[in-house]
């Protein structure tokens, strides 16, 4: 076999490295770039002004509302906020633990159900049917009802060796519901991988399982990171619902103080704490996805 010409770097667009030759930017380029810089400065200034204006307007509307002094007292009381904060944080630790454990369980279970639904062959018919029934049922059943059935119903059975711990039972209920959601996300991902990818894998001699494991799933999971994160954030907030069994999470901790003081500030504190927990998670996934994309198409068209 003859040797095809060695690739040169000629097919690297966007690789306009100045300095190879005696390149001097033309007057045209200098002017163009000066204009672009001026326009960018102007855009930033307008954005800042507009933001300030909108903020001031919102502030004035709220502060001048007839009920504002009363609202400020009941919702934004610094003293209550300081009192509530440590207890809300303590409660939040439960939410975080539940999120970590249930999140991991949901991802594993969801993936297994999604794979079960795509298994070919008549042998797996019952598996496919069961998986479909599972997602249909638990996606349809309101979470609060699942929680009540599991947290209140299971202990009522008085089964030997089955826990009555409301946190464990609540976590189980969350996992049941959310793995149904996540299974559908994974399934959509699996089905979004173009059939030609599977055809290519199969024609290399890979078995159906190997094609799924090495070719389909890696692409499916990458694509589904944003919707998965959506479900995880939702799960994080719903972990608070385990309090119906008596466990004290961040929301319940705020609830207790509100019940005692009739001041709603602790709710605001709990709400902000949840938001503060979500934002880094979102940024982290954004960063992960961006890094994956960059690795695949370094220097490609933006």
């Amino acid at each position, binding site marked *: 076999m003859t040797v095809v010409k*060695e*690739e040169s770097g000629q097919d690297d667009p966007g690789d306009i490295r100045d300095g190879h030759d005696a390149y001097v930017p033309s007057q045209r380029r200098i002017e163009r770039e000066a204009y672009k810089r001026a326009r960018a400065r102007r855009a930033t200034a307008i954005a800042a002004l507009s933001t300030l204006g909108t903020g001031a307007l919102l502030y004035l509307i709220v502060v001048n509302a007839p009920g504002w002094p009363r609202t400020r007292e009941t919702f934004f009381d610094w003293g209550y906020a300081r009192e509530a904060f440590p207890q809300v944080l303590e409660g939040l630790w439960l939410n975080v633990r539940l999120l970590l454990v249930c999140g991991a369980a949901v991802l594993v279970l969801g993936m297994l159900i999604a794979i079960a639904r795509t298994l070919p062959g008549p042998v797996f018919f019952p598996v496919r049917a069961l998986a479909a029934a599972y997602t249909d049922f638990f996606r349809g059943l309101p979470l609060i009802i699942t929680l009540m059935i599991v947290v209140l119903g299971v202990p009522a059975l008085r089964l030997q060796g089955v826990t009555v711990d409301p946190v464990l039972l609540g976590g189980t209920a969350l996992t049941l519901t959310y793995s149904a959601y996540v299974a559908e996300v994974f399934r959509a991902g699996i089905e979004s991988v173009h059939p030609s990818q599977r055809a*290519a894998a199969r024609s*290399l*001699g890979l078995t159906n399982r190997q094609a799924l494991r090495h070719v389909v799933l890696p*692409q499916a999971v990458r694509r589904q990171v944003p919707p998965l994160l959506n479900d995880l954030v939702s799960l994080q907030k719903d972990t608070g619902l385990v309090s119906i069994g008596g466990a004290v999470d961040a929301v319940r901790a705020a609830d207790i103080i509100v019940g005692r003081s009739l001041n709603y500030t602790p709710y605001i504190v709990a709400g902000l704490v949840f938001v503060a927990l979500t934002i880094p998670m979102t940024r982290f996934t954004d960063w992960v996805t961006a890094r994956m994309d960059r690795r*695949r198409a370094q220097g*490609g068209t933006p």
Partner: protein
Amino acid sequence: MSEFPEQSSVLRMESVRKTFGGTVVLRDVDLEVAPHTVTALIGASGSGKSTLLRCANLLEEIDDGAIWLDGEEITDPRADQDAVRRRIGVVFQAYNLFPHMTVLENITLAPRRVHGVARAEAEERARELLERLGLGARAGEYPDRLSGGQQQRVAIVRALAVRPRLLLLDEITAALDPELVGEVLTVVRDLKDEGMTMVLATHEMGFAREVADQVCFLDGGVVLERGTAELVFGEPRQERTRRFLRRIVNAGRL
């Protein structure tokens, strides 16, 4: 109908019929591919060339007839489909490289996972093949970073990495810019010189005429005319073949 297909042919098809929801795509197709020969399938789009190749690789199930690979009937429902595909390499029109893997990972996937070759050995062979096709520097890149011609050459290397008995090429230059077609065809020409048995569906008539030992003209799912390249291109017997070739010539593609 012979019960003992000739052992000498690598691929043999007999009375193959394939329909897609009532449309007959292949009708009574016979084909015989001898070792170390190149068979070119020509014909208009939709004449059944690609389907024929997909049937040979069992990506499509045929409705009637039979296909043998090295004398073994692969259309027998009891045949191990994965084992059959292991012996056939396929290159697709749209390359179908795995976008989440580097070039090297694309090529070593099948040798490692299907054929149980050790990683170091698989990578060594992959690098050797890449080097020969002028892609040595691209082993660590992801497919999205390569030009169409480079991607298609990687796809060829991927198909060759498992040392297939038969190579199926499905319009492998159809998605390429004209100036990139040459680099891919050079590779195919070299493979022929090495004695690789190939079946290719193509619109590159000049190329088919040059490399093919056997040319089959498909029309409406039927092999209307077959023979050596000189015969089919030089003195076609069928009116339809003549019309097809005339259109090609008028379009400046022969």
